[in-house]
Protein backbone atom coordinates (compact mmCIF):
# COMPACT_ATOMS: atom_id res chain seq x y z
CA UNK A 1 0.00 0.00 0.00
CA UNK A 2 1.25 3.48 -0.77
CA UNK A 3 1.89 5.79 2.14
CA UNK A 4 -1.08 8.01 3.00
CA UNK A 5 -0.73 11.38 1.32
CA UNK A 6 -2.72 14.11 3.02
CA UNK A 7 -3.60 16.23 0.04
CA UNK A 8 -7.01 16.10 -1.57
CA UNK A 9 -5.67 14.52 -4.76
CA UNK A 10 -3.49 12.16 -2.82
CA UNK A 11 -6.44 10.97 -0.82
CA UNK A 12 -8.47 10.52 -3.97
CA UNK A 13 -5.64 8.54 -5.54
CA UNK A 14 -5.44 6.33 -2.46
CA UNK A 15 -9.17 5.82 -2.55
CA UNK A 16 -9.00 4.76 -6.17
CA UNK A 17 -6.06 2.43 -5.51
CA UNK A 18 -8.12 0.70 -2.82
CA UNK A 19 -11.31 0.74 -4.84
CA UNK A 20 -9.87 -1.03 -7.84
CA UNK A 21 -8.79 -4.01 -5.76
CA UNK A 22 -12.21 -5.47 -6.49
CA UNK A 23 -12.62 -6.19 -10.23
CA UNK A 24 -16.39 -6.72 -9.89
CA UNK A 25 -16.81 -3.23 -8.44
CA UNK A 26 -14.72 -1.76 -11.26
CA UNK A 27 -16.89 -3.54 -13.83
CA UNK A 28 -19.98 -2.20 -12.06
CA UNK A 29 -18.55 1.31 -12.17
CA UNK A 30 -17.98 0.96 -15.92
CA UNK A 31 -21.60 -0.16 -16.32
CA UNK A 32 -22.79 2.89 -14.39
CA UNK A 33 -20.70 5.27 -16.47
CA UNK A 34 -21.99 3.66 -19.68
CA UNK A 35 -25.60 3.84 -18.47
CA UNK A 36 -25.27 7.48 -17.46
CA UNK A 37 -23.64 8.42 -20.77
CA UNK A 38 -26.35 6.61 -22.74
CA UNK A 39 -29.03 8.37 -20.74
CA UNK A 40 -27.44 11.80 -21.23
CA UNK A 41 -26.97 11.32 -24.96
CA UNK A 42 -30.23 9.43 -25.46
CA UNK A 43 -31.50 11.83 -28.16
CA UNK A 44 -28.34 11.25 -30.18
CA UNK A 45 -28.14 7.49 -29.66
CA UNK A 46 -31.80 6.53 -29.93
CA UNK A 47 -33.15 5.90 -33.43
CA UNK A 48 -36.54 7.29 -32.43
CA UNK A 49 -38.08 9.81 -30.03
CA UNK A 50 -40.58 7.74 -28.03
CA UNK A 51 -42.31 10.91 -26.72
CA UNK A 52 -43.23 12.03 -30.19
CA UNK A 53 -46.64 10.47 -30.83
CA UNK A 54 -46.46 11.38 -34.52
CA UNK A 55 -43.36 9.28 -35.06
CA UNK A 56 -45.14 6.18 -33.81
CA UNK A 57 -46.81 3.83 -36.21
CA UNK A 58 -49.27 1.22 -34.99
CA UNK A 59 -48.18 -1.07 -37.82
CA UNK A 60 -44.92 -1.43 -35.95
CA UNK A 61 -46.65 -2.61 -32.76
CA UNK A 62 -45.20 -5.60 -30.89
CA UNK A 63 -42.46 -6.40 -33.38
CA UNK A 64 -40.09 -9.02 -31.97
CA UNK A 65 -36.41 -8.13 -31.55
CA UNK A 66 -34.41 -7.86 -34.73
CA UNK A 67 -37.30 -6.98 -37.08
CA UNK A 68 -37.17 -4.02 -39.41
CA UNK A 69 -40.10 -1.60 -38.93
CA UNK A 70 -41.64 1.06 -41.13
CA UNK A 71 -38.87 3.45 -40.14
CA UNK A 72 -36.48 1.31 -42.18
CA UNK A 73 -34.16 0.48 -39.25
CA UNK A 74 -33.79 -2.63 -37.15
CA UNK A 75 -35.62 -2.74 -33.82
CA UNK A 76 -32.90 -4.63 -31.97
CA UNK A 77 -34.99 -4.99 -28.86
CA UNK A 78 -38.39 -5.11 -30.59
CA UNK A 79 -41.28 -2.67 -30.18
CA UNK A 80 -44.09 -2.23 -27.67
CA UNK A 81 -47.87 -2.15 -28.16
CA UNK A 82 -47.80 1.45 -29.37
CA UNK A 83 -45.08 0.72 -31.91
CA UNK A 84 -42.31 2.38 -29.87
CA UNK A 85 -38.80 1.19 -30.55
CA UNK A 86 -37.90 -0.43 -27.21
CA UNK A 87 -34.23 0.46 -27.40
CA UNK A 88 -35.15 4.14 -27.70
CA UNK A 89 -37.81 3.85 -25.02
CA UNK A 90 -35.30 2.23 -22.65
CA UNK A 91 -32.75 5.01 -23.21
CA UNK A 92 -35.36 7.66 -22.48
CA UNK A 93 -36.70 5.60 -19.62
CA UNK A 94 -33.23 5.33 -18.12
CA UNK A 95 -33.06 9.09 -18.30
CA UNK A 96 -36.27 9.51 -16.37
CA UNK A 97 -35.33 6.85 -13.82
CA UNK A 98 -31.84 8.27 -13.23
CA UNK A 99 -33.13 11.84 -12.92
CA UNK A 100 -35.73 10.75 -10.40
CA UNK A 101 -33.27 8.59 -8.51
CA UNK A 102 -30.60 11.26 -8.30
CA UNK A 103 -33.02 14.06 -7.48
CA UNK A 104 -34.66 12.03 -4.75
CA UNK A 105 -31.26 10.94 -3.45
CA UNK A 106 -29.89 14.50 -3.42
CA UNK A 107 -32.94 16.06 -1.74
CA UNK A 108 -33.14 13.24 0.79
CA UNK A 109 -29.42 13.70 1.51
CA UNK A 110 -29.77 17.42 2.15
CA UNK A 111 -32.94 17.07 4.21
CA UNK A 112 -31.73 14.05 6.14
CA UNK A 113 -28.27 15.45 6.85
CA UNK A 114 -29.79 18.72 8.05
CA UNK A 115 -32.24 17.00 10.37
CA UNK A 116 -29.53 14.67 11.68
CA UNK A 117 -27.08 17.55 12.26
CA UNK A 118 -29.71 19.62 14.04
CA UNK A 119 -30.51 16.70 16.33
CA UNK A 120 -26.84 16.01 17.08
CA UNK A 121 -26.05 19.71 17.56
CA UNK A 122 -28.86 20.51 19.97
CA UNK A 123 -28.94 17.29 21.94
CA UNK A 124 -31.38 16.89 24.82
CA UNK A 125 -35.10 16.87 24.20
CA UNK A 126 -34.99 18.10 20.62
CA UNK A 127 -32.60 15.30 19.76
CA UNK A 128 -34.72 12.71 21.55
CA UNK A 129 -37.89 13.83 19.80
CA UNK A 130 -36.37 14.00 16.32
CA UNK A 131 -34.69 10.65 16.63
CA UNK A 132 -37.83 9.00 17.98
CA UNK A 133 -39.72 10.13 14.89
CA UNK A 134 -36.89 9.00 12.63
CA UNK A 135 -36.74 5.58 14.29
CA UNK A 136 -40.47 5.18 13.94
CA UNK A 137 -40.26 6.05 10.27
CA UNK A 138 -37.40 3.62 9.74
CA UNK A 139 -39.41 0.81 11.26
CA UNK A 140 -42.05 1.26 8.55
CA UNK A 141 -41.07 -0.06 5.12
CA UNK A 142 -40.22 2.67 2.62
CA UNK A 143 -42.50 1.17 0.01
CA UNK A 144 -45.51 1.61 2.29
CA UNK A 145 -44.72 5.26 3.04
CA UNK A 146 -44.10 6.04 -0.61
CA UNK A 147 -47.34 4.30 -1.52
CA UNK A 148 -49.37 6.39 0.90
CA UNK A 149 -47.66 9.61 -0.11
CA UNK A 150 -48.17 9.05 -3.80
CA UNK A 151 -51.78 8.30 -3.02
CA UNK A 152 -52.00 11.55 -1.06
CA UNK A 153 -50.08 13.83 -3.39
CA UNK A 154 -51.26 12.43 -6.70
CA UNK A 155 -49.23 11.42 -9.73
CA UNK A 156 -46.50 13.37 -11.45
CA UNK A 157 -42.76 13.90 -11.31
CA UNK A 158 -42.53 16.40 -8.40
CA UNK A 159 -45.01 14.43 -6.30
CA UNK A 160 -43.12 11.22 -6.99
CA UNK A 161 -39.79 12.76 -5.99
CA UNK A 162 -41.36 14.23 -2.86
CA UNK A 163 -42.75 10.85 -1.89
CA UNK A 164 -39.37 9.18 -2.43
CA UNK A 165 -37.59 11.85 -0.40
CA UNK A 166 -40.07 11.56 2.46
CA UNK A 167 -39.69 7.80 2.44
CA UNK A 168 -35.88 7.85 2.42
CA UNK A 169 -34.52 10.92 4.19
CA UNK A 170 -34.68 9.06 7.51
CA UNK A 171 -31.75 6.84 6.50
CA UNK A 172 -29.58 9.90 5.94
CA UNK A 173 -30.75 11.50 9.17
CA UNK A 174 -29.93 8.36 11.15
CA UNK A 175 -26.46 8.08 9.58
CA UNK A 176 -25.59 11.76 9.99
CA UNK A 177 -26.82 11.78 13.56
CA UNK A 178 -24.80 8.70 14.44
CA UNK A 179 -21.52 10.07 13.11
CA UNK A 180 -22.08 13.66 14.21
CA UNK A 181 -23.21 12.91 17.75
CA UNK A 182 -20.18 10.72 18.33
CA UNK A 183 -18.06 13.72 17.34
CA UNK A 184 -20.23 16.14 19.27
CA UNK A 185 -19.25 14.53 22.55
CA UNK A 186 -15.55 15.12 21.97
CA UNK A 187 -13.88 17.86 23.93
CA UNK A 188 -12.77 20.03 21.07
CA UNK A 189 -16.34 20.59 19.93
CA UNK A 190 -17.33 21.61 23.44
CA UNK A 191 -14.38 23.98 23.35
CA UNK A 192 -15.38 25.39 19.96
CA UNK A 193 -18.95 25.88 21.16
CA UNK A 194 -17.81 27.86 24.18
CA UNK A 195 -16.09 30.41 21.92
CA UNK A 196 -18.07 33.08 20.09
CA UNK A 197 -17.63 31.10 16.86
CA UNK A 198 -20.99 30.94 15.07
CA UNK A 199 -22.77 27.64 15.53
CA UNK A 200 -23.03 26.88 11.85
CA UNK A 201 -19.25 27.03 11.56
CA UNK A 202 -19.02 24.24 14.12
CA UNK A 203 -21.71 22.34 12.30
CA UNK A 204 -20.13 22.56 8.88
CA UNK A 205 -16.47 22.61 9.82
CA UNK A 206 -16.47 19.76 12.32
CA UNK A 207 -19.67 17.79 12.54
CA UNK A 208 -20.52 17.44 8.86
CA UNK A 209 -17.10 16.29 7.60
CA UNK A 210 -17.14 13.46 10.11
CA UNK A 211 -20.49 12.30 8.84
CA UNK A 212 -19.44 12.43 5.19
CA UNK A 213 -17.91 9.00 4.54
CA UNK A 214 -20.93 7.04 5.80
CA UNK A 215 -23.23 9.52 4.05
CA UNK A 216 -21.54 8.88 0.71
CA UNK A 217 -22.17 5.18 1.12
CA UNK A 218 -25.81 5.67 2.10
CA UNK A 219 -26.27 8.09 -0.79
CA UNK A 220 -25.03 5.58 -3.36
CA UNK A 221 -27.31 2.88 -2.08
CA UNK A 222 -30.26 5.24 -1.74
CA UNK A 223 -30.00 6.38 -5.36
CA UNK A 224 -30.34 2.75 -6.35
CA UNK A 225 -33.18 2.30 -3.89
CA UNK A 226 -34.95 5.39 -5.25
CA UNK A 227 -34.70 4.05 -8.77
CA UNK A 228 -36.02 0.65 -7.67
CA UNK A 229 -38.77 2.22 -5.58
CA UNK A 230 -39.86 4.49 -8.40
CA UNK A 231 -39.95 1.52 -10.75
CA UNK A 232 -42.02 -0.41 -8.22
CA UNK A 233 -44.49 2.45 -7.79
CA UNK A 234 -44.78 2.87 -11.55
CA UNK A 235 -45.31 -0.86 -11.88
CA UNK A 236 -48.14 -0.66 -9.36
CA UNK A 237 -49.67 2.05 -11.52
CA UNK A 238 -48.90 4.83 -9.04
CA UNK A 239 -45.87 6.36 -10.73
CA UNK A 240 -45.49 8.31 -13.92
CA UNK A 241 -47.93 8.13 -16.84
CA UNK A 242 -46.77 6.22 -19.91
CA UNK A 243 -46.42 9.40 -21.95
CA UNK A 244 -43.33 10.02 -19.83
CA UNK A 245 -42.01 6.50 -19.42
CA UNK A 246 -39.59 5.47 -16.75
CA UNK A 247 -38.19 1.96 -16.70
CA UNK A 248 -40.87 0.92 -14.25
CA UNK A 249 -43.76 2.07 -16.40
CA UNK A 250 -42.20 0.39 -19.44
CA UNK A 251 -42.04 -2.89 -17.56
CA UNK A 252 -45.57 -2.45 -16.27
CA UNK A 253 -46.73 -1.67 -19.76
CA UNK A 254 -45.27 -4.91 -21.08
CA UNK A 255 -46.50 -7.08 -18.23
CA UNK A 256 -49.82 -7.90 -19.88
CA UNK A 257 -48.01 -9.24 -22.95
CA UNK A 258 -45.67 -11.42 -20.95
CA UNK A 259 -48.17 -14.25 -20.64
CA UNK A 260 -48.74 -14.32 -24.38
CA UNK A 261 -45.06 -14.88 -25.01
CA UNK A 262 -44.12 -11.32 -26.06
CA UNK A 263 -41.50 -11.26 -23.37
CA UNK A 264 -39.32 -8.48 -24.80
CA UNK A 265 -41.66 -5.61 -23.98
CA UNK A 266 -41.18 -6.24 -20.26
CA UNK A 267 -37.91 -8.09 -20.07
CA UNK A 268 -35.53 -5.67 -21.80
CA UNK A 269 -36.47 -2.61 -19.77
CA UNK A 270 -36.24 -4.89 -16.72
CA UNK A 271 -32.72 -5.95 -17.61
CA UNK A 272 -31.71 -2.29 -17.95
CA UNK A 273 -33.25 -1.60 -14.54
CA UNK A 274 -31.57 -4.57 -12.94
CA UNK A 275 -28.15 -3.77 -14.40
CA UNK A 276 -28.35 -0.18 -13.19
CA UNK A 277 -29.55 -0.99 -9.68
CA UNK A 278 -27.19 -3.90 -9.09
CA UNK A 279 -24.21 -1.96 -10.48
CA UNK A 280 -24.88 0.97 -8.15
CA UNK A 281 -25.23 -1.39 -5.20
CA UNK A 282 -21.98 -3.18 -6.01
CA UNK A 283 -20.13 0.12 -6.27
CA UNK A 284 -21.73 1.24 -3.01
CA UNK A 285 -20.59 -1.98 -1.32
CA UNK A 286 -17.01 -1.44 -2.40
CA UNK A 287 -17.07 2.23 -1.37
CA UNK A 288 -18.33 1.12 2.04
CA UNK A 289 -15.51 -1.40 2.21
CA UNK A 290 -12.85 1.15 1.27
CA UNK A 291 -14.14 3.89 3.56
CA UNK A 292 -14.57 1.59 6.54
CA UNK A 293 -12.14 2.93 9.15
CA UNK A 294 -11.95 -0.43 10.92
CA UNK A 295 -10.81 -2.17 7.76
CA UNK A 296 -7.36 -3.69 8.03
CA UNK A 297 -5.09 -2.73 5.20
Amino acid at each position, binding site marked *: MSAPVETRWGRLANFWADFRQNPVAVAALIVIVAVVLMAIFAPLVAPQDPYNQKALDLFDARLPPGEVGSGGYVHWLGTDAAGRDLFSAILYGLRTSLIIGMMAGAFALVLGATVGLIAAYHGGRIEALIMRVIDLQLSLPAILLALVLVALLGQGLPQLVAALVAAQYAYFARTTHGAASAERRKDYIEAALSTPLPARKVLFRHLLPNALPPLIVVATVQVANSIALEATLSFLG*LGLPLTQPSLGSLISNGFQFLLSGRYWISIYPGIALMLTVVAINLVGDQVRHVLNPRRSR
Partner: protein
Amino acid sequence: MIGFLIQRVLQAVMVMIAMSVIVFLGVYAIGNPIDVMIDPASSQALREALIQRYGLDRSLIEQYFVFMNNMLHGDLGESFIYRLPVISLIWSRFPATLELALTAMMIATCLGIPLGLWAGYKPDSWSAKAIMAFSVLGFSVPTFWIGLLLIMTFAVELGWLPSGGRGPVSNILGLNLSIGSLEGWSYIILPAFNLALFKLGLLIRLTRAGTTEVMSSDYVRFARAQGLSEGKVVGLHVLKNISIPIVTVFGLELGSTLAFAVVTETVFNWPGMGKLIIDSITVLDRPVMVAYLILVVFLFVIINLVVDLVYGQLDPRIRVKAAS
Protein backbone atom coordinates in the same frame (compact mmCIF):
# COMPACT_ATOMS: atom_id res chain seq x y z
CA MET B 1 -39.34 -6.12 34.40
CA ILE B 2 -42.97 -5.07 34.98
CA GLY B 3 -41.93 -1.41 34.87
CA PHE B 4 -40.13 -2.02 31.60
CA LEU B 5 -43.22 -3.73 30.19
CA ILE B 6 -45.58 -0.92 31.23
CA GLN B 7 -43.23 1.68 29.80
CA ARG B 8 -43.10 -0.13 26.48
CA VAL B 9 -46.87 -0.61 26.30
CA LEU B 10 -47.48 3.08 27.06
CA GLN B 11 -45.02 4.00 24.33
CA ALA B 12 -46.84 1.72 21.92
CA VAL B 13 -50.21 3.33 22.74
CA MET B 14 -48.75 6.82 22.16
CA VAL B 15 -47.38 5.74 18.82
CA MET B 16 -50.75 4.30 17.83
CA ILE B 17 -52.62 7.50 18.70
CA ALA B 18 -50.10 9.67 16.86
CA MET B 19 -50.23 7.45 13.81
CA SER B 20 -54.01 7.35 13.76
CA VAL B 21 -54.11 11.17 13.68
CA ILE B 22 -51.49 11.36 10.93
CA VAL B 23 -53.08 8.65 8.83
CA PHE B 24 -56.55 10.03 9.30
CA LEU B 25 -55.61 13.60 8.43
CA GLY B 26 -53.36 12.50 5.61
CA VAL B 27 -55.81 10.24 3.93
CA TYR B 28 -58.72 12.60 4.41
CA ALA B 29 -56.81 15.37 2.73
CA ILE B 30 -57.20 13.63 -0.63
CA GLY B 31 -59.91 14.83 -3.03
CA ASN B 32 -63.59 14.36 -2.53
CA PRO B 33 -64.52 10.67 -2.50
CA ILE B 34 -68.13 11.41 -3.39
CA ASP B 35 -66.96 12.35 -6.90
CA VAL B 36 -65.54 8.89 -7.27
CA MET B 37 -68.55 7.12 -5.87
CA ILE B 38 -71.36 8.56 -7.87
CA ASP B 39 -72.19 9.44 -11.40
CA PRO B 40 -71.39 13.16 -11.96
CA ALA B 41 -74.83 13.51 -13.52
CA SER B 42 -76.72 12.43 -10.42
CA SER B 43 -78.88 14.87 -8.51
CA GLN B 44 -77.69 17.28 -5.87
CA ALA B 45 -80.03 15.66 -3.34
CA LEU B 46 -78.39 12.26 -3.75
CA ARG B 47 -75.01 13.91 -3.31
CA GLU B 48 -76.04 15.61 -0.09
CA ALA B 49 -77.57 12.42 1.22
CA LEU B 50 -74.37 10.53 0.64
CA ILE B 51 -72.23 13.26 2.18
CA GLN B 52 -74.41 13.16 5.24
CA ARG B 53 -74.42 9.39 5.38
CA TYR B 54 -70.64 9.23 5.52
CA GLY B 55 -70.40 12.24 7.83
CA LEU B 56 -68.32 14.23 5.35
CA ASP B 57 -70.12 17.48 6.17
CA ARG B 58 -68.76 17.60 9.68
CA SER B 59 -65.47 19.18 10.71
CA LEU B 60 -62.29 17.15 10.49
CA ILE B 61 -61.90 17.01 14.27
CA GLU B 62 -65.44 15.77 14.67
CA GLN B 63 -64.90 13.21 11.96
CA TYR B 64 -61.74 12.04 13.71
CA PHE B 65 -63.44 11.57 17.04
CA VAL B 66 -66.33 9.74 15.45
CA PHE B 67 -63.79 7.57 13.67
CA MET B 68 -61.79 6.88 16.83
CA ASN B 69 -64.91 6.14 18.82
CA ASN B 70 -66.10 3.71 16.20
CA MET B 71 -62.69 2.15 15.93
CA LEU B 72 -62.49 1.44 19.64
CA HIS B 73 -65.80 -0.36 19.22
CA GLY B 74 -64.31 -2.44 16.45
CA ASP B 75 -65.99 -0.47 13.68
CA LEU B 76 -63.61 0.86 11.05
CA GLY B 77 -66.32 2.16 8.78
CA GLU B 78 -67.74 0.96 5.51
CA SER B 79 -66.00 0.78 2.17
CA PHE B 80 -67.24 3.41 -0.31
CA ILE B 81 -66.84 0.96 -3.15
CA TYR B 82 -67.82 -2.44 -1.84
CA ARG B 83 -70.42 -1.08 0.59
CA LEU B 84 -69.19 -3.60 3.14
CA PRO B 85 -67.80 -3.10 6.65
CA VAL B 86 -64.09 -2.50 6.19
CA ILE B 87 -63.22 -4.87 9.00
CA SER B 88 -64.84 -7.85 7.33
CA LEU B 89 -63.42 -6.81 3.96
CA ILE B 90 -59.86 -6.77 5.29
CA TRP B 91 -60.44 -9.86 7.38
CA SER B 92 -61.59 -11.77 4.31
CA ARG B 93 -58.30 -10.90 2.60
CA PHE B 94 -56.13 -11.40 5.65
CA PRO B 95 -55.58 -15.20 5.51
CA ALA B 96 -54.24 -14.99 1.97
CA THR B 97 -51.64 -12.38 2.92
CA LEU B 98 -50.76 -14.07 6.17
CA GLU B 99 -50.06 -17.44 4.63
CA LEU B 100 -48.08 -15.81 1.84
CA ALA B 101 -45.95 -13.84 4.30
CA LEU B 102 -45.41 -16.78 6.63
CA THR B 103 -44.50 -19.14 3.81
CA ALA B 104 -42.05 -16.52 2.54
CA MET B 105 -40.50 -16.08 5.98
CA MET B 106 -40.18 -19.84 6.30
CA ILE B 107 -38.42 -20.12 2.95
CA ALA B 108 -36.12 -17.22 3.85
CA THR B 109 -35.22 -18.73 7.21
CA CYS B 110 -34.75 -22.32 6.05
CA LEU B 111 -32.42 -21.20 3.24
CA GLY B 112 -30.94 -18.02 4.68
CA ILE B 113 -29.55 -19.28 7.98
CA PRO B 114 -27.69 -22.34 6.62
CA LEU B 115 -26.37 -20.38 3.64
CA GLY B 116 -25.27 -17.49 5.85
CA LEU B 117 -23.64 -19.89 8.32
CA TRP B 118 -21.70 -21.52 5.55
CA ALA B 119 -20.66 -18.20 4.01
CA GLY B 120 -19.46 -17.02 7.42
CA TYR B 121 -17.76 -20.28 8.30
CA LYS B 122 -15.80 -20.57 5.06
CA PRO B 123 -15.63 -16.93 3.92
CA ASP B 124 -12.88 -17.51 1.38
CA SER B 125 -14.43 -20.44 -0.46
CA TRP B 126 -15.90 -19.75 -3.87
CA SER B 127 -19.25 -21.12 -2.72
CA ALA B 128 -19.35 -18.46 0.02
CA LYS B 129 -18.62 -15.78 -2.57
CA ALA B 130 -21.39 -17.11 -4.81
CA ILE B 131 -23.81 -17.04 -1.86
CA MET B 132 -22.88 -13.43 -1.12
CA ALA B 133 -23.30 -12.40 -4.75
CA PHE B 134 -26.72 -14.03 -4.70
CA SER B 135 -27.63 -12.09 -1.56
CA VAL B 136 -26.71 -8.80 -3.24
CA LEU B 137 -29.07 -9.69 -6.08
CA GLY B 138 -31.71 -10.69 -3.54
CA PHE B 139 -32.03 -7.32 -1.97
CA SER B 140 -31.02 -4.94 -4.71
CA VAL B 141 -33.12 -6.19 -7.63
CA PRO B 142 -36.70 -4.94 -7.32
CA THR B 143 -39.13 -7.60 -6.14
CA PHE B 144 -41.65 -7.08 -8.92
CA TRP B 145 -39.03 -7.62 -11.58
CA ILE B 146 -37.91 -10.92 -10.10
CA GLY B 147 -41.58 -11.85 -9.92
CA LEU B 148 -41.89 -11.24 -13.65
CA LEU B 149 -38.85 -13.39 -14.33
CA LEU B 150 -40.27 -16.18 -12.19
CA ILE B 151 -43.58 -16.05 -14.03
CA MET B 152 -41.84 -16.02 -17.38
CA THR B 153 -39.60 -18.94 -16.49
CA PHE B 154 -41.86 -21.26 -14.51
CA ALA B 155 -45.29 -20.38 -15.86
CA VAL B 156 -44.80 -19.26 -19.45
CA GLU B 157 -41.68 -21.08 -20.66
CA LEU B 158 -41.67 -24.25 -18.57
CA GLY B 159 -45.39 -24.34 -17.81
CA TRP B 160 -44.78 -26.04 -14.46
CA LEU B 161 -46.69 -23.66 -12.24
CA PRO B 162 -49.67 -21.34 -12.60
CA SER B 163 -48.83 -17.73 -13.40
CA GLY B 164 -51.01 -16.21 -10.73
CA GLY B 165 -54.17 -16.34 -8.66
CA ARG B 166 -54.73 -18.34 -5.53
CA GLY B 167 -56.22 -21.69 -6.52
CA PRO B 168 -58.21 -23.91 -4.21
CA VAL B 169 -58.34 -23.16 -0.50
CA SER B 170 -59.26 -25.38 2.40
CA ASN B 171 -60.39 -24.40 5.85
CA ILE B 172 -57.64 -24.83 8.43
CA LEU B 173 -58.18 -23.56 11.98
CA GLY B 174 -60.98 -21.32 10.75
CA LEU B 175 -58.85 -19.70 8.04
CA ASN B 176 -59.15 -20.34 4.33
CA LEU B 177 -55.64 -21.40 3.32
CA SER B 178 -53.93 -22.67 0.17
CA ILE B 179 -51.28 -24.65 1.94
CA GLY B 180 -53.69 -27.48 2.75
CA SER B 181 -53.44 -29.05 -0.69
CA LEU B 182 -50.71 -29.83 -3.19
CA GLU B 183 -52.50 -27.78 -5.82
CA GLY B 184 -52.68 -24.88 -3.39
CA TRP B 185 -48.91 -25.14 -2.96
CA SER B 186 -48.42 -24.92 -6.71
CA TYR B 187 -50.10 -21.51 -6.54
CA ILE B 188 -48.34 -20.18 -3.46
CA ILE B 189 -44.79 -21.35 -4.09
CA LEU B 190 -43.82 -18.77 -6.75
CA PRO B 191 -45.20 -15.69 -4.98
CA ALA B 192 -43.87 -16.88 -1.64
CA PHE B 193 -40.41 -17.42 -3.09
CA ASN B 194 -40.60 -14.01 -4.74
CA LEU B 195 -41.54 -12.37 -1.46
CA ALA B 196 -38.85 -14.35 0.36
CA LEU B 197 -35.93 -13.20 -1.82
CA PHE B 198 -35.42 -9.83 -0.16
CA LYS B 199 -35.50 -11.32 3.34
CA LEU B 200 -33.32 -14.16 2.14
CA GLY B 201 -30.63 -11.72 1.02
CA LEU B 202 -30.89 -9.85 4.29
CA LEU B 203 -30.82 -12.98 6.41
CA ILE B 204 -27.80 -14.39 4.59
CA ARG B 205 -25.86 -11.19 5.19
CA LEU B 206 -26.91 -10.96 8.79
CA THR B 207 -26.13 -14.59 9.57
CA ARG B 208 -22.80 -14.35 7.82
CA ALA B 209 -21.79 -11.19 9.64
CA GLY B 210 -22.74 -12.74 12.97
CA THR B 211 -20.95 -15.98 12.18
CA THR B 212 -17.69 -14.32 11.13
CA GLU B 213 -17.76 -12.22 14.27
CA VAL B 214 -18.38 -15.17 16.58
CA MET B 215 -15.91 -17.44 14.77
CA SER B 216 -13.10 -14.93 15.35
CA SER B 217 -14.01 -14.42 19.00
CA ASP B 218 -11.87 -15.54 21.90
CA TYR B 219 -14.57 -17.79 23.27
CA VAL B 220 -14.67 -19.83 20.07
CA ARG B 221 -10.89 -20.12 20.26
CA PHE B 222 -11.25 -21.20 23.87
CA ALA B 223 -13.96 -23.71 22.91
CA ARG B 224 -11.64 -25.14 20.28
CA ALA B 225 -8.84 -25.28 22.82
CA GLN B 226 -11.17 -27.41 24.95
CA GLY B 227 -11.44 -29.85 22.06
CA LEU B 228 -15.03 -29.09 21.10
CA SER B 229 -15.81 -30.40 17.64
CA GLU B 230 -16.50 -27.89 14.88
CA GLY B 231 -20.13 -29.02 14.79
CA LYS B 232 -20.46 -28.30 18.48
CA VAL B 233 -18.71 -24.93 18.15
CA VAL B 234 -21.15 -23.85 15.46
CA GLY B 235 -24.20 -25.49 17.03
CA LEU B 236 -23.61 -24.22 20.54
CA HIS B 237 -21.72 -20.94 20.33
CA VAL B 238 -22.47 -19.54 16.88
CA LEU B 239 -26.16 -20.43 16.72
CA LYS B 240 -26.92 -19.14 20.18
CA ASN B 241 -25.13 -15.85 19.51
CA ILE B 242 -26.60 -15.14 16.12
CA SER B 243 -30.08 -16.12 17.30
CA ILE B 244 -30.45 -12.68 18.90
CA PRO B 245 -30.13 -10.51 15.78
CA ILE B 246 -31.97 -13.10 13.73
CA VAL B 247 -34.99 -13.20 16.01
CA THR B 248 -35.04 -9.41 16.01
CA VAL B 249 -34.92 -9.20 12.27
CA PHE B 250 -37.33 -12.07 11.78
CA GLY B 251 -39.84 -10.31 13.99
CA LEU B 252 -39.38 -6.86 12.52
CA GLU B 253 -39.33 -8.22 9.00
CA LEU B 254 -42.58 -10.12 9.46
CA GLY B 255 -44.29 -6.73 9.50
CA SER B 256 -42.44 -5.44 6.49
CA THR B 257 -43.11 -8.72 4.68
CA LEU B 258 -46.81 -8.12 5.15
CA ALA B 259 -46.29 -4.64 3.71
CA PHE B 260 -44.08 -5.81 0.85
CA ALA B 261 -46.75 -8.33 -0.05
CA VAL B 262 -48.37 -5.34 -1.78
CA VAL B 263 -45.96 -5.73 -4.68
CA THR B 264 -45.90 -9.51 -4.89
CA GLU B 265 -49.67 -9.74 -4.64
CA THR B 266 -50.03 -7.34 -7.56
CA VAL B 267 -47.55 -9.25 -9.71
CA PHE B 268 -49.09 -12.64 -9.01
CA ASN B 269 -52.65 -11.40 -8.77
CA TRP B 270 -52.84 -12.85 -5.26
CA PRO B 271 -56.10 -11.80 -3.60
CA GLY B 272 -54.66 -10.53 -0.30
CA MET B 273 -54.71 -7.29 1.68
CA GLY B 274 -51.97 -5.74 -0.44
CA LYS B 275 -54.00 -6.10 -3.61
CA LEU B 276 -56.93 -4.58 -1.73
CA ILE B 277 -54.96 -1.48 -0.66
CA ILE B 278 -53.61 -0.86 -4.15
CA ASP B 279 -57.11 -1.09 -5.57
CA SER B 280 -58.39 1.20 -2.81
CA ILE B 281 -55.74 3.81 -3.49
CA THR B 282 -56.57 3.94 -7.19
CA VAL B 283 -60.28 4.42 -6.46
CA LEU B 284 -59.80 6.60 -3.34
CA ASP B 285 -61.67 4.22 -1.06
CA ARG B 286 -60.76 6.13 2.12
CA PRO B 287 -62.08 3.89 4.88
CA VAL B 288 -60.20 0.92 3.47
CA MET B 289 -56.97 2.93 3.20
CA VAL B 290 -57.24 4.28 6.73
CA ALA B 291 -58.14 0.91 8.19
CA TYR B 292 -55.37 -0.88 6.33
CA LEU B 293 -52.74 1.64 7.38
CA ILE B 294 -53.82 1.66 11.00
CA LEU B 295 -53.88 -2.10 11.01
CA VAL B 296 -50.37 -2.26 9.58
CA VAL B 297 -49.05 0.27 12.08
CA PHE B 298 -50.77 -1.67 14.85
CA LEU B 299 -49.08 -4.86 13.65
CA PHE B 300 -45.72 -3.08 13.60
CA VAL B 301 -46.13 -1.76 17.11
CA ILE B 302 -47.17 -5.16 18.46
CA ILE B 303 -44.32 -6.91 16.67
CA ASN B 304 -41.80 -4.37 17.96
CA LEU B 305 -43.05 -4.91 21.47
CA VAL B 306 -42.84 -8.69 21.23
CA VAL B 307 -39.38 -8.54 19.69
CA ASP B 308 -38.15 -6.32 22.53
CA LEU B 309 -39.44 -8.78 25.10
CA VAL B 310 -38.06 -11.86 23.32
CA TYR B 311 -34.74 -10.09 22.89
CA GLY B 312 -34.52 -9.62 26.63
CA GLN B 313 -35.13 -13.33 27.12
CA LEU B 314 -32.37 -14.29 24.71
CA ASP B 315 -29.67 -11.93 25.90
CA PRO B 316 -28.98 -12.28 29.62
CA ARG B 317 -27.06 -9.00 29.66
CA ILE B 318 -30.15 -7.01 28.67
CA ARG B 319 -32.29 -8.87 31.17
CA VAL B 320 -30.05 -7.66 33.95
CA LYS B 321 -30.17 -4.08 32.76
CA ALA B 322 -33.96 -4.13 32.56
CA ALA B 323 -34.24 -5.63 36.03
CA SER B 324 -31.94 -3.19 37.77
